[in-house]
């Protein structure tokens, strides 16, 4: 576990490169989320929808961006999380996720940081978002 984060505006979170998305992960995410939309599981269904093959669930990409904040959960939590989907994530894509501090605000019992975050594959930004992470005072 990391120490209490003490970010400054403009600071970047270290980019993480994740293992390539596998079919098995999509099957696991379908089971864990209840989203069995066949475009994530069956190539024929994806092709019928005009896609080259199965694509990852958008919410899996969002959750992947959330991994950036997991090391700090001892000290606070993700208070808000927004994301816009701008590209497809295919099987085999190794997503890179990262972010940057855009603001900080002191409240009575905590510090609220805001971040711009992204998930990119080799060709495009698959999702871009904004995270509010609340750090409790000691």
């Amino acid at each position, binding site marked *: 576990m990391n120490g209490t984060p003490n970010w400054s505006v403009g600071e970047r979170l270290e980019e993480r490169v994740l293992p390539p998305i596998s079919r098995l992960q999509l099957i696991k995410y379908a089971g864990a989320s209840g989203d069995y939309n066949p475009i994530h599981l069956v190539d024929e269904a994806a092709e019928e929808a005009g896609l080259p093959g199965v694509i990852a669930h958008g919410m899996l990409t969002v959750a992947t961006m959330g991994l950036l904040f997991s090391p700090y959960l001892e000290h606070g939590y993700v208070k808000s999380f*927004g994301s816009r989907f701008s590209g497809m994530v295919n099987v085999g894509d190794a997503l890179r996720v990262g972010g940057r501090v855009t603001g900080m605000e002191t409240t009575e019992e905590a510090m609220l940081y805001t971040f711009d975050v992204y998930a990119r594959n080799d060709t495009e930004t698959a999702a871009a978002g904004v995270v509010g992470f609340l750090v409790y005072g000691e």
Partner: protein
Amino acid sequence: MLYGEFVGGRSKPLLNLVERGAVRKFAEAIADPNPLYVDEAAAKRSRYGRLLVPPTFPRTFDYGHIEGLKLPSAGMIHGEFHISYERPLFVGEEVFCRMRLEDSYDKQGRKGLLGFLVFERTGESPDGARIFTMNDVVVVTEVVRRVIEA
């Protein structure tokens, strides 16, 4: 505008239990090994004293149905997602969930007329206190619109 007559429509609140096994499976699926999601002993030692839930987990709850609203089973595209918490959510909690169709509007896109549906989903504790508010934008392509309007 798609489903215009349902804008403002709400589902009845449904009770969801934040199950430990469901959270463990979800944490595994998103490849987040954080012990605060799965390890009771680690959670007990933490400031929270109990197991946390990954931030996007509430998307898996059952929010019920808006009376009469039948969405197509395929072809809808998730355009945007947003969740905002009043406080952390914990394993073992009971959450009353409901949804509302907030808005519906059309926009001309490069590949035809796109429909946008804006949903609000909320979770409350049994005493009626809001825990989280979720907003999703779902995009309906022209091809799917023809199916809906047929």
